[in-house]
């Protein structure tokens, strides 16, 4: 194990670790905070909350986002809700139960200490958001309402219609706006981070491209926080926003930060199916719909044929001819099994020939029973905006006919390796939210991404970064004329010049789509050794082709969306290979990582705890050289490791 991999998990009982740690780490006095600069890259739930909280504490913060406003970050698209262990519904929830569900949902591939802390700070997040004026759903008595999400048997999810991410982000963005107004945070919009700058081995700044002018700019600080989200867009088609990318984490990796569990990508079971080759992205239908929707396919092949030929409608198929396969296979959790389980079950039925649309890649999500039981009005109140969104996209009214859904890439559990302080292997470089690997193991539970982003940003990083910055109170401001900045800036400029100079024949999207096909076919929902080797060879070839045949039109010194994409796809063409290598190394199935060679007779994941009870940590070795794998072994002191069981 690399000596850099010290997870710094505090000793002692689970419930005391975080309290003990907080009392032992250093703090910075208010007078000294004013002298210290922090860069935060990204303004989703993690970045916006961290920048706001650090500004409140008195640090000088610079925050960067690629859109025209911090409010556009893709956290805004999270629909269903945010988990917290408040136990308001009196259904026997607790911090321990939230912790346990998260560890189990992640298929025992996350750290106990981190996950317990996440569950612990989940409650103050709700308090803060309410104080900020987030309009959560309420009961008639005026108190907060909850609903259920996958992988849990209690109702612990707080929500604001189907727009919870939006409302939480607007809360964090408002807190950020307040700090901007007070002068503690400086906001830089339409800027994309293209490199990390190290001085004497420590993170001291970033190089960004001004997306309006095309100028390359440099910014220095005493610490850098990466909050740029996940890299799901490596698949081209995903539920991620079009501009979401993996470039900032990838540049950190290339500067020496370890990348953990890159192959752990979450496939979300309920997305609107692909309609054709011209499609640019996939739209998620919230997991909350599984509270009231029942998933099924026909039992009889002849019904499937008729549906595909549009001779009958789903609503005409009688009850006895419907296969509610989740309820059949997993009686205890039914339609609310975790995402990876629900996704594979949909694939299994479609592979067996029961897919209900022309492409054979769709299953039904049906609200008929809920509408009968609760009335249309209640369903409309709960999911109105989602139903409207579905109808606008598909031209089908889901109040009358069931929705058609299919799994799609949604979230990446992998990311930059961080210790308990959320610091990467590079001193002074921190990573929070989806950009790090820390809390979700092999599979993230629904409504836990919002929880993690805000936990990291509001309640964890503001404490732990102090421990690092306390050692910097004598340090001068970072001088951006340092040769390290010149070197990084020149490298970026050379890379951009090279992209323009190729003058090939194919647009950037051509390569991105090809990469997406390779990733989905071989590094997607089901993986095997042969396929992964094919993927690695295929990506290498595609990468060579890209650097010979891509065409980037226009100029570098202007707003140029093609060069933005080209830089991102160049990075995806490297990152995708690492994902395949990691998936090849992990010869077990766990969570969303399903190796076909390793499954039970019933087709469930088969873990190998003796050999793979570790977090993979990849270290960059140089361009076109294979990275080195380090392992952080996971010790389960408190939870009894078991096979995940959602049947009884």
């Amino acid at each position: 194990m690399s000596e850099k991999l010290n997870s710094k998990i505090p000793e002692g009982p689970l419930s005391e670790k975080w309290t003990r740690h907080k009392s032992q780490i250093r703090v910075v006095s208010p007078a000294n905070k004013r002298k210290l600069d922090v860069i935060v890259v990204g303004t989703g739930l993690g970045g916006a909350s961290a920048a706001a909280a650090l500004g409140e504490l008195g640090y000088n913060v610079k925050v960067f986002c690629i859109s025209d406003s911090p409010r556009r970050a893709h956290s805004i698209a999270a629909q269903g809700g945010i988990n917290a262990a408040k136990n308001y519904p009196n259904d026997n929830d607790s911090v321990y139960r939230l912790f346990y569900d998260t560890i189990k949902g992640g298929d025992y591939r996350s750290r106990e200490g981190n996950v317990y802390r996440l569950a612990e700070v989940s409650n103050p997040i709700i308090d803060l958001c309410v104080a900020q004026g987030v309009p959560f759903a309420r009961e008639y008595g005026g108190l907060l309402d909850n609903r259920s999400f996958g992988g849990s048997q209690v109702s612990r999810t707080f929500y604001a219609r189907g727009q919870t991410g939006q409302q939480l982000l607007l809360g964090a963005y408002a807190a950020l706006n307040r700090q901007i107004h007070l002068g503690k945070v400086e906001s830089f919009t339409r800027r994309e981070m293209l490199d990390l700058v190290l001085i004497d081995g420590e993170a001291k700044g970033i190089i960004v491209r001004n997306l309006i002018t095309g100028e390359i700019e440099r910014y220095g600080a005493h610490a850098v926080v990466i909050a740029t989200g996940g890299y799901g867009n490596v698949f081209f088609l995903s539920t991620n926003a079009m501009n979401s990318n993996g470039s900032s984490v990838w540049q950190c990796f290339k500067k020496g930060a370890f990348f953990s569990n890159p192959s752990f990508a979450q496939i979300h079971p309920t997305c609107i199916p692909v309609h054709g080759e011209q499609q640019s992205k996939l739209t998620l239908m919230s997991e909350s719909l599984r509270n009231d929707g029942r998933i099924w396919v026909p039992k009889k092949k002849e019904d499937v044929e008729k549906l595909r030929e549009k001779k009958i409608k789903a609503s005409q198929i009688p009850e006895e001819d419907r296969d509610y396969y989740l309820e059949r296979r997993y009686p205890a959790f039914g339609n609310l099994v975790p995402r990876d389980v629900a996704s594979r079950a949909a694939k299994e039925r479609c592979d067996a020939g029961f897919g209900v649309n022309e492409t054979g890649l769709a299953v039904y999500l049906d609200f008929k029973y809920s509408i009968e039981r609760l009335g249309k009005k209640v369903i409309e109140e709960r999911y109105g905006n989602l139903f409207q969104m579905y109808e606008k996209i598909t031209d089908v009214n889901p109040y009358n006919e069931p929705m058609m859904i299919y799994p799609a890439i949604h979230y990446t559990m992998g990311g930059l390796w961080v210790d308990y302080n959320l610091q990467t292997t590079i001193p002074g470089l921190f990573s929070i939210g989806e950009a790090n690997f820390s809390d979700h193991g092999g599979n993230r539970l629904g409504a836990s991404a919002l929880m993690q982003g805000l936990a990291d940003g509001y309640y964890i990083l503001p404490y732990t970064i102090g421990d690092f910055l306390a050692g910097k109170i004598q340090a001068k401001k970072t001088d951006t004329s340092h040769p390290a900045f010149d070197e990084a800036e020149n490298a970026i400029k050379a890379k951009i010049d090279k992209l323009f100079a190729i003058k090939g024949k194919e647009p950037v999207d051509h390569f991105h789509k090809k990469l997406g096909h390779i990733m989905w076919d071989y590094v997607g929902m089901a993986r095997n050794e042969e396929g992964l080797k094919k993927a690695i060879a295929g990506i290498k070839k595609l990468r060579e082709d890209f650097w010979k045949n891509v065409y980037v039109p226009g100029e570098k010194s202007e707003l140029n969306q093609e060069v933005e994409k080209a830089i991102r796809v160049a990075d995806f063409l490297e990152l995708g290979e690492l994902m395949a290598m990691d998936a090849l190394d992990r010869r077990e199935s766990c969570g969303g990582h399903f190796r076909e060679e390793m499954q039970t007779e019933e087709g469930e994941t088969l873990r190998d705890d003796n050999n793979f009870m570790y977090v993979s940590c990849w270290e960059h070795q140089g361009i076109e050289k294979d990275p080195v794998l380090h392992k952080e072994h996971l010790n389960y002191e408190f939870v009894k490791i078991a096979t995940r069981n959602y049947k009884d």
Partner: protein
Amino acid sequence: MDFKLKVWRQKSAKEKGSFHTYEVKDISPDTSFLEMLDIMNDQLIRAGADPVAVNKGCQSDQPVAFDHDCREGICGMCSLYINGRAHGPDDDITTCQLHMRKFKDGETITIEPWRSAGMPVIKDLIVERNALDKILQAGGYVSVNTGGVPDANTIPVPRDDAEESMDAASCVGCGACIATCKNGSAMLFVSARVSSLALLPQGKIEAARRVKEMVAKMDELGFGACTNTRACEIECPKSISISHIARMNREFLLAKLKD
């Protein structure tokens, strides 16, 4: 389906713009409007990459720049005036949720950027919307710090108030209301935030200060006045009601009376 596209081209904020016409063919009715623009851009890029075609006099324009991100109607990044309507010829959606089935085969579609003094064009169909951030920075928040807040359920909120607050809070900050208003007024946008917070007990404490500062900033940035034409409400992709403007006016008046 085939379409003729009349698209506004403008190289930068300083240069003059004009309409250019492009054609796209064999578009599926299930294609989204932005996917149709992707296809148009793909054609333009390929034409530019092909020297033979360029020599033959084919179009060699640069791809058209347009803002977009989530493509599911929530980030507020996409804009566009399509055939004279903000977010195009469908109700209650953003441009990214518009599909080609809403157009007729062979139709000529006119595509323009938002046109409003408060939101100048940066390039082609992309406009500058920083003014919206600035208005919110002036006071669109509850002044609480992280930590030291009471338990969430110690602040009960009547359900109807929470729902109405949520109606206002669903604003995506796209700017359609401003682009649609003949006065270039930002009243619907500003009132959505003012009203959302004014409806909640958490927001009442500094309601007076908030409304005064946000309105002052809006005026300072040169946005026009409201003359109740309701055009904003009709084009708002989230159907935000102008009743929020009425509430803001009430809040503003009360705040001024206390001065």
